[in-house]
Structures are given as structure tokens and as C-alpha cells.
């Protein structure tokens, strides 16, 4: 429900996001902010499929990588601007999602997760070995036409805003109710006349689309990709899961909050703790997930609801 308070919060967030790069103007810090925007986008996209619809994907690197390579290959083979990748990338990601949905959604429970896990790895290996088309392990390097961080920041912010808006509209429509129903009990959902496979695909396709968009944007911004970077299991597929868990699964702002925390904490640790950073960071993420199992946004939601219920004098429930 979009009540007045939520609306106000969204406006405040948006204003902060708009002025942030004017306040924080060191290129390194702006770089961190841009990474946050990219990860918030991937997280929001993953959240639609895995958080709301409950179809946990361990293979979002496939969509991210295909988006990134779409932009890269346009430049490499067709001498087109990689910015066209922002259109081609998401479309290609959706195209590869179609057969995946058709096959993997027949599988229930852990099999879907395993299928997507295999998927990301298959793409990595294929892109490593199709050297004529992809440059293989050498990767693709492009000359960025724009170097100003501010422009990337606002483009990334636009990308995240669109992703948040579209997922919000989906989640708060009939489709959203159906997705959550499928997550909560697939048999019950079927008994209510919900065509579960169709609706899972309605979550998968936009999820793939926006992850592909983030991939294409990443290529434009970083200007170098290779299969081990963009199809990476730990650094993409698993990381997006951690980002969303940290922020709050199946919440509007969870992925964005999670991305900000994850990226900024990760950078702080990397610059201050030297080689112990991965360990300390890993332990901290585990602790947060253990003690705040609903993520930051999820826990805030619960506290808010309890407070509202107390005010309304209602009892019980979650």
C-alpha cells in the first residue's frame, strides 16, 4: 500500500539520491555509489523472482553476463556504441530466460535452484570457449565515450528507479498476490486457479530483463569484461543473494539497503583491514543474517507493524 508516509519516504530517498553526487564529489566515492546502484538494480530484479515468487535463483550471473556481453559484442563486432547494449542486453537476457523458464519451472523445490546454479556456470564456460565471438578469457575492452562519473551516477540512478517502479507495480498488482501465493503454497495456489508456471515466468522475465540491463550498464561503465567476471558464481550469483538477504527479502527497499550496506562495508573493510577483510566481512554478513533473519528492511517492517497493531489495539499475528 502506498500511503502518505511511504510516499514521503520515497521522496526523501529520491532527493537524497539526487543530491548525493554533488556532496560526495571524490571520484573514488562516486565510483562506490555507482556500484551500489548497479547492485541495487540486480538485487531488486532477483528479489522479484526469488523473494516474492520464491523461486530461488543461483544463476543470475547468466542474465547479468549476457547483458554485459550484449553491449560488449555490439562494439567488438559491429562497431556500434555499447550504449545500444542497454536495449539489446535486457532483451537478450529475457530471450535466454524463456527456455530456462520453460524447462526449470517444471522442477519443484531445490531442483529449480540447482538448475539455475548450473546455468550460470554453463554460460561462463561457453563464453570462455567461444573465443571467436566473445574473445574468450581475454575479455572485451571498450573505449568509453563518457568518462564523467556524475553522468554514470544519474544514468544508474534512473536505471534503479525504473527497476524499483516496475517491480513495485508488479508486486502490488494481482500478479504480485499470485506470485506470493505460489511461494507460500503451490498446491493451494493451483487449487485457486492460478496457472503457476505462467506466473513464475511473469516473475522470471522482468527479473532477467533488469539484471541484463544492469549487466549492459556495467559494461558501459567499467569498459572491460571477461567471462570469469560477469558470469561469476560467487561474485555475482551468490553475492546478489547475500545483498538481498542483508537488506530484506521480499521488501521494496531491502535490495537497495542491502546493496548500499554490502558495497560500502566491503570497501571500508578492504581499505582498512588489508588481507583479513574477506574473512571479517564474511563473518559480519553471517552474523547480520543470523540475528536479523528478515534483513534490515524486513525487521523494520515487523517493528512497524507491531507498533501499528499496538496502536490499533489488535492482538496476535505477525
Amino acid at each position, binding site marked *: 500500500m502506498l500511503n502518505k508516509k511511504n510516499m514521503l519516504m520515497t521522496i526523501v530517498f529520491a532527493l537524497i539520491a539526487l543530491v548525493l553526487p554533488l556532496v560526495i564529489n571524490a571520484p573514488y566515492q562516486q565510483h562506490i555509489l555507482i556500484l551500489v546502484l548497479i547492485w541495487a538494480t540486480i538485487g531488486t530484479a532477483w528479489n522479484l523472482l526469488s523473494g516474492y515468487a520464491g523461486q530461488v535463483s543461483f544463476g543470475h550471473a547468466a542474465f547479468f553476463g549476457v547483458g554485459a556481453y550484449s553491449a560488449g559484442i555490439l562494439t567488438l563486432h559491429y562497431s556500434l556504441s555499447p550504449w545500444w547494449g542497454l536495449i539489446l542486453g535486457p532483451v537478450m537476457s529475457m530471450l535466454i530466460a524463456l527456455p530456462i523458464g520453460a524447462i526449470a519451472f517444471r522442477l519443484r523445490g531445490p531442483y529449480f535452484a540447482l538448475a539455475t546454479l548450473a546455468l550460470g556456470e554453463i554460460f561462463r564456460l561457453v563464453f570462455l570457449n567461444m573465443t571467436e565471438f566473445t574473445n574468450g578469457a581475454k575479455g572485451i575492452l571498450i573505449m568509453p565515450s563518457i568518462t564523467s562519473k556524475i553522468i554514470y551516477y544519474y544514468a544508474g540512478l534512473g536505471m534503479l528507479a525504473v527497476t524499483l517502479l516496475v517491480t513495485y507495480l508488479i508486486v502490488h*498488482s494481482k500478479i504480485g*498476490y*499470485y506470485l506470493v501465493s505460489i511461494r*507460500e*503454497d503451490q498446491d*493451494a495456489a493451483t487449487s*485457486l*486457479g*492460478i496457472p503457476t508456471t505462467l506466473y513464475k515466468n511473469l516473475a522470471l522475465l522482468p527479473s532477467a530483463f533488469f539484471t541484463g540491463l544492469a549487466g549492459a550498464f556495467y559494461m558501459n561503465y567499467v569498459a572491460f569484461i571477461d567471462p570469469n567476471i560477469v558470469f561469476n558464481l560467487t561474485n555475482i550469483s551468490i553475492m546478489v543473494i547475500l545483498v538481498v538477504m542483508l537488506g530484506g527479502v521480499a521488501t521494496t527497499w531491502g535490495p537497495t539497503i542491502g546493496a548500499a550496506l554490502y558495497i560500502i562495508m566491503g570497501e571500508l573493510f578492504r581499505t582498512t583491514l588489508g588481507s583479513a577483510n574477506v574473512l571479517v566481512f564474511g563473518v559480519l554478513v553471517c552474523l547480520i543474517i543470523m540475528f536479523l533473519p528478515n534483513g534490515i528492511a524486513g525487521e523494520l517492517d515487523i517493528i512497524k507493524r507491531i507498533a501499528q497493531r499496538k496502536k490499533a489495539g489488535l492482538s496476535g499475528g505477525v
Partner: protein
Amino acid sequence: MSIFETRGITKRFGGLTAVNDLTFTVNKGEIFGIIGPNGSGKTTVFNMISRFFPITAGEIYFNDKRIDTLPAHEICKIGIGRTFQVVKPLRRMTVQENVMAGAFLRTGSISKARQKAEEIINFCNLENYKFRASKGLPIPLRKRLEIARALATEPQLLLLDETCAGLNPKESEAAIELIRRIRDTGITIIIIEHIMKVMMGISDRILAINFGKEIAMGKPQEVANHPEVIKAYLGEAYA
């Protein structure tokens, strides 16, 4: 006038024949009871009707149309709702959201679905629990929610699987009253129940099965006094 019909439906799980050549007809507006001892195949009949698995043999008709080849989600769309013996609440959704999930079958609009849910929730006397997460509800309310959710899909035929099981006499009295009110709105009901007294009082006709086969069919009194039924329930010595 018949609304629903099965012709020789059979379901085999490997070597086990759970439902064996069952033929019966349900009339529009009636409450049709199915009884039988544990494991006699009652729930399997519901799962066959709602197409949770394909049937091994036979045919099923609803409003004179063959339906045993439709996919599971279509069954609800054409007007057959069901509840589950082992309740399946949409756990982290509230009572209201559960019922809305059913209402969305006939509307794409959130406000219409909410309004429909509101009516159904009141009809089922669940108004005090509207905003409770369904997983925290006690069993009698969860059973009631199963019915409410199915009603929201606007069924012509409702399949109720042991909605009184595990309820105390007072609660089951209330459940029976609800079932009667549902029938009074014109919805045809097939009901499975273990408690003979419940079935005797509420059913227009009863089908008794054992080992997946029909052993008796007719008015409640006839079925209750049928020697095969007494034998199935009480053992050889009482027949």
C-alpha cells in the same frame, strides 16, 4: 438435474488401486457425502476431480463437459473449488490476503478483490481475524479459511475434505451451519467426513466406499444401515 458425473474413474499408484471404477452423479444444489474408512480413497477422488494427478481410467463430466483432461488450474476456473484435508494456508499472508488470492480468479482489480474478500470473510465469520497471518491461526479457523478461500473463486461445485475433523462438537456445529448456508446460496457440495453423525445430518445422498470401490449409495439412512457399510466400519462381527 445433474451437475457433475464420474464414469468408471480409477486411480492406480503403482500396484495399489486407490480408486476403483467409481461411477456417481451429483445433482445441482445437493450436498453429496462420501464416506469410507481411513485410506479408502476419498481424498484421492478429490485429487482426481481437481486434476492434482492424471486419472488412470474413466471420465469426469461437469455441466456435461468432459473435464478430466483439463490442467489443474483450469478446474477452479470452470467452477470447481476445493479445500484440503491437510490444510494449506498461504502461510505468511493474512486471512484477508488468502481470500483475496482466491477472489483474483474473477477480477484483476485489487479493490474489487478486497471487497469480494470482505464479503466472504464476513460470510464465514472470520472478520475478527482479517489481518492475522494465516500460519498463526488455530486449526478450526484454518479449516474455515480453506472454505473462505475456495468460496472466493465463486465455485458452482465445492469439494470439502474433512472440514470438521479435529473440531470439538461446538466448532463442528458451527462448521455444519456454515456448510448449510453455502448450500443455500445455490452452491453444490461434495463433502468427505469421517463423523457419521455429521454426514447423516447434512447429506442429501451418501456414497460409501471401501478399498476405492463403491459399497453403498443412497439416502443417509439406507447407507448407514447397509450391511457392507457396517462391516467396513465396525468389522465382520457386526454385519
